[in-house]
């Protein structure tokens, strides 16, 4: 069955070709309910391997695949905003080029959006799969709007790879703010401030390659990227000054501590 749904993806030179193939297969051939459009933004020049997979996908997905090529690498926020302009459906599902959607993802999320017309943004839990051990760890997020709103003051309440949203409100607030990291978190805070309704489904609908690599991210540039978003949220009034300070210090600590400590912190934060 096909539904009025656009899937929004972006890929760039750094993506693994095999991962992109799996990602595309998971939102198309394997879905119990199929989107009627897949928008794939190619962010800058990419290797022959990636291009080969894109043409394979064009063959299988046919006219439902819209490939948008950017001449230069512009970053995820710009790529997604350009892609959003090409989305024909009112409901848009995000998909990352290195994740896999479970086969009932669109069926479940689309049904929820139809049933709850006031919900603008819907996420779900995601399942992190450790590349080496195959171990899976669910990443929980709160489900009700009230809990999401409260949670959002401290952490990103929506797992970006799992999100499905209504196009109109996102376009209305100008799309993704142009940050290098956390552009989605910035967008959610703007939408929450405008009073749009959020929800999360309490099931894991996306499998994500995670494990150690996420924990390994440390260093000043991560902190700076994150603090830009925290500044933005404070400046726009989404965060109060005390919340802003706690977040800023918290992120600094997380990015500065040794890897082993951070692994522990991540574990605590998840549960």
């Amino acid at each position, binding site marked *: 069955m096909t539904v009025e749904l656009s899937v929004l993806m972006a890929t760039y030179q750094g993506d693994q070709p095999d991962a992109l193939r799996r990602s595309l297969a998971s939102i198309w051939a394997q879905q119990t309910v199929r989107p009627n459009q897949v928008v794939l933004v190619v962010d800058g020049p990419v290797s022959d391997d990636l291009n080969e997979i894109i043409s394979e996908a064009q063959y299988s997905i*046919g006219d439902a695949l819209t490939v948008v090529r950017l001449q230069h690498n512009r970053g995820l926020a710009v790529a997604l905003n350009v892609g959003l302009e090409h989305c024909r459906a009112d409901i848009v599902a995000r998909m990352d080029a290195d994740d896999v959607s479970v086969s009932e993802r669109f069926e479940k999320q689309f049904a929820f959006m139809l049933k709850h017309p006031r919900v603008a943004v819907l996420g779900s839990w995601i399942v992190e799969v450790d590349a080496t051990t195959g171990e899976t760890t669910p990443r929980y997020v709160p489900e009700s709007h009230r809990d999401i709103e409260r949670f959002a003051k401290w952490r990103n309440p929506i797992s970006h790879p799992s999100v499905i949203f209504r196009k109109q409100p996102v376009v209305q607030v100008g799309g993704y703010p142009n940050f290098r990291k956390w552009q989605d978190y910035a967008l959610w805070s703007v939408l929450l401030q405008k009073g749009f309704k959020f929800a999360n489904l309490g099931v894991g609908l996306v499998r994500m390659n995670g494990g150690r690599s996420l924990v390994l991210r440390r260093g000043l540039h991560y902190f700076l990227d994150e603090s830009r978003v925290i500044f933005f949220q404070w400046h726009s009034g989404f965060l109060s000054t005390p919340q802003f300070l706690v977040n800023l210090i918290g992120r600094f600590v997380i990015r500065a501590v040794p890897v082993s400590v951070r692994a522990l912190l991540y574990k605590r934060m998840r549960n």
Partner: protein
Amino acid sequence: MGTRIAVTGSAGYVGSELVKRVSGTDNFEQVLQLDRNISESVSTIGASFRVDLSEISVTDLSNRLKDVDVLFHLAAARVDWGLDYNTYERDNVRATRRLIEAARMAGIRQWVYFSTVGVYGSSETPLDEDSPFAPQSDYGRTKAQAENELLAIADAESWAVRILRPSAIFSENQPKDTNICRLIEAIRRHRFILIGDGSEIKTTSYLHNVVDATLWLYHDLVSGGITAYNYVDEPRLTTREMVDLIRDELRVRIPLVRLPVALIERPARAVDWVGNRVGHDFPITAARIRKFCTATNFDSYRIRKAGFLPRYSSKEAMIRTVRWHRERIT
């Protein structure tokens, strides 16, 4: 929701993986397993019956299949050695015939049927689904006959049927008698000799892509009618490319030994002769050498054009499989 399915050959190589996959989702109300090598059990999601399709009476079989909506027919005699024509005929033709009768009595009108590219025979140029049947082995001949019988009845009764014709299936955990398993193990043990120049294309099908395709066909049943699809992994590799990939992944450094075909044909026939006398399956047989040196080149554009997109490329599938072989030993 709430479809009830039955899987024949559910304890087999592909069948068991399919059952694992369908049991992991909540799309099916009931999964019935039929196999002659299975212990009987009943669970909340379904039951398994120890059944030999070529022996059970049609009435018994149709009773077991009562309330089933979709039949996945995977049971078959598959190995390429040690079986005589009668065994293939019994397990592939007669078993299917009984299943068709039983399905008719039980009112099942939707089938996903596992066939093989073996129904076409070999070819240098890629063969698509419209190519005529010209099987060259007993396996291929009996599978072609079973498929034809199913198609005749499906057409007369207006059943919805999807037929999948995969080429050589392989994966991690593969049975020892698959061609790819033999190839990898021979290379790993430094017992591999490349016969000929290896320039012929050998299409393969990764198990997980095949199971995905099977489920895709199942979802496609709603549009009715009868359609057959080939399945092969892309990009299609030549024997040489496959061998190089395996050697690379196994880090085999010794030089590749190559022999012209003519030199090996006669000794192999002698080995066959001995093998037949003592009843032992030697790794080298004249038939396997012939099979090794003929291109098995099939085209699966139809299923791709219809929207199926495999998760794994041929190369990634091969690398994953070889890694499994490597890790199993060290």
